[in-house]
């Protein structure tokens, strides 16, 4: 594989690999290390990439293994034991409509989430991975994926509950769609 092809591979998949690592470690620095190691390993074993296969799935498989090794080499983080709990108000009619929040404000709130939760949110809604795919690559049950997504949204709603009206998207306040 030539350098431009590898550069293209990086461009296309570095973010999702980094998110997987972030979701597994909760540590941005460790995630960057894992992402780098993943691609180095990918380059080393590029001949194992099925030409007809999905390079993202292949990379995520490597990322999963690298993350696993990384986790073994460190003490298990206490945070992995703790799933932060907030009231799940998703189903309530008065729950904050996240789509009605100004994009910048919502992005800021997402950025303030615990990294593990933010990353899972991104894997689902930006990378469009299925619950099962996320569960597989993170090595957790599907139900835990759903739980983390619910929790992330609940935290967002909780954080955005007392928004200043100016933070609400004007179109959304008028009933329109943000996007």
């Amino acid at each position, binding site marked *: 594989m030539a350098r431009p092809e590898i550069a293209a591979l*990086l461009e296309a998949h570095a973010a999702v690999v980094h998110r997987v690592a972030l979701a597994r470690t909760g540590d941005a620095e460790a995630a960057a290390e894992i992402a780098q190691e993943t691609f180095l390993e990918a380059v080393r074993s590029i001949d194992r990439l099925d030409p007809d296969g999905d390079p993202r799935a292949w990379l995520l498989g490597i990322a999963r293994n690298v993350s696993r090794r990384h986790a073994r080499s460190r003490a298990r983080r206490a945070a992995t034991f703790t799933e932060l709990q907030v009231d799940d108000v998703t189903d309530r009619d008065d729950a904050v409509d996240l789509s009605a929040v100004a994009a910048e404000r919502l992005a800021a709130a997402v950025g303030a989430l615990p990294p593990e939760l933010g*990353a899972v949110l991104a894997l689902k809604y930006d990378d469009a991975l299925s619950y099962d795919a996320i569960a597989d690559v993170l090595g957790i049950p599907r*139900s835990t994926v759903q*739980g983390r997504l619910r929790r992330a949204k609940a935290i967002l709603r909780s954080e955005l509950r007392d928004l200043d009206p100016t933070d609400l998207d004007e179109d959304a306040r008028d009933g329109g769609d*943000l996007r």
Partner: protein
Amino acid sequence: MTNAALSCEELRPLAEPFADGELADDLRARAEAHRSGCPDCDARLARAGREASALGAATAVAVAAPAGLAASILDAIDAAAVGAAVAPDERRASPDPDEEAAAPPATRSPNAAPWVATIVAVGAGLVLGGFLLGGGDERAPRPSGLRPAVREGAPADPGAAGASEAPRPTSGAPAALDPPAPVDPAAPVDAGDAGSGAATPGGPWLPTGPGAVEAGRFDPNGPYPWAEPAVIAGRDELIRRLASRQASVNFPDTPLADVVGFLNDITGDQFVLSEAIAGAGLRVSLRTRDMVLHDLIGLIAAQLGIRSEVLTDRVVFLERGESIPGATAKDTAILEARSVIERAIDRQLVIPIEAIPDHVFQRRVDVHWSEETVTAAIDQLRDQTGLSFVLTTAARQIADTAHVSLTATQALVPDVLDVLADLGLVARWRDGAWRLISHEEAETERRAREKKQAELARLASVLAGTVVETELRRGGVRVLARTLERTRGLRVLLDEGAWRTRAPVTVMAAEGLPLDVVAAALRVQTGVDIAIETDAERRDVIVLAGGLTGGGSDEQARHEARASEPTPINDAIRRRRDRVLVKLRAAVAEVDAILEAQLDGESNAYLHDERRWNERRYDANFLGQALAMLRSRLTSAREIAEGRVEVEDTRAVVVQVAERIREVGMRLPPIAERQRRLNVEIEAIIEASGGQPDGERYEELMTALRDTKLEEARVDSELRMLGERARELCAPSTVEEVLAEAPIDHRAEARRTLEAIEGGADLLTIWPGLRDDPYLRPLLETD
């Protein structure tokens, strides 16, 4: 499941999975059906969809990879490659110094861009000494004046043609042990000889086994690609190409995979490694100038003891050199597996556990030690038993200064020596003597053994690609049995001797791994002879028999019986184990204290600053920290308890969490009762005041009510976290860990738990006892 439309209540929790595209088709259809007739639910689903879109946009911005991540990784790849590359002048070396400046880029493979030449070096220290293909364009036809390096019937003259022309190996020994001399590229070619194809016996290029190549992958079960005349002709063409080109290389301990990458790049052909050698970590040390590629490959093959076969006009297959013509894939696997085991033994990758002979084990002594130095005590043991006791320098230093007091009659020597463990000495029976070493030395030995076992496991992974690997202090053979059952679909029976063998085993079991190899590994690792036999009538049943042979099982039984005797030694051992248990209990108690303190702290914070409490609640991780501490302490204690506690570790945490759930749940009824009473009184005041309540008592009651609600929320929150933690502990991955750790009699239970969870069971199913708790049950059911 019916096809009826969903109700609003049913649809409500499905809104997000619906928006996430995660509903099964039938459920989605039913949701759509309901949505069309229900404006509220339609709005709910639309909103969920909008939220998903908004979150997609928000996460794209907020959870982006660090700026420049891709660039920095690319830099790292470049740096690794450039750092490993040799100086440019060396890389551009050419056969004739006069040609150096004139060597045109066109002489290189079009696929071998300079960057590619360096990328294959990533992380492996590959140094390319430069290459020059002497035959011009790689696809150019063979010049008529050249001959292929391998010719049918060519004399096996090591001095002239080396391995590439040696007779084909037929007895497992690779033929290409001697480096072949460079072939004269100007020598005449005998196309007729080279084209004789599969029937040609000899030389590393000749196909000898089943194989097919498709998209660069080798299928050992595929058809014989060289059977077709067109394939044979193509194969000869590749041989001619390789014989017509030269390269200069410098591979200083370079991974074979990188060498193959290099060859692929400069030839444009496919050099394919068999699975067996792809993961074997083979490395090449070679420096050549202007060597014909064909011979260069022969050299590499000879150095590594592998062989090469030209399969098609584009593919060269590299595999182990021990293959026998006509051998099946299974035969090859057996050979490879034996090779690995032999290598493991040669390199002392395993330390056989030496069983203590019965006559040594049964030797009894009378001791009356009162503040005796250990050295003097050991001298007494030596005198009484006639056995050899050897102390290392470190152990001697301890023995000279430490004192021991013990009175025992007819005590077993191992038990007496066990007491010395408290003084920092570890006794091992080895080489016909009791060897006393310090704890530190024992730890060093343990680490060395683990390292060796890890290397054995790595070697084992070479065998079959995927290897189930488990290591236990105890029950190793039993674990092997279960692993075989799981991975091979076999029913494994153990006789008592095998059952009682407790030496550690790094289990190697994988699809395709021959049982005799497993048995060999078992014998090597346990140090005792365990046979694996297949049942005469049922091929899917195997028997592990032997183990502690020669009365070994009886010896084990006697040992266990003796261990339960009320002797002073046994009492001393029991006291030591009790001390461990006390530490365990202290650890658990401390965790409880931490939890209580944390809860109180959070509660007080909440009263003063709700937002702060919320923030802290998110950040505290108190349960995780407490449990991590418990786990850590259990681990420490486990080491002291010699593995007995180890297998109960995870289970202990599970039980702890379950008990905690119950304890916390029991706080709810009194809270509910207080709330009920407060509400009654408050309502009475409201009624009496005509809906305008006021006054000190009313405020007092409202404050008390608020407190109870806070307390209820706190308990509720903790219960939810505990529930989550319990589920996490019982999640399949964790249960797998439990399976790996659990003693044999817990494995079935752990397996049932795993299956229950995989089947969608909830906590109430897993721990039926929770059903008895009237307050916890509804909470868990709705959680």
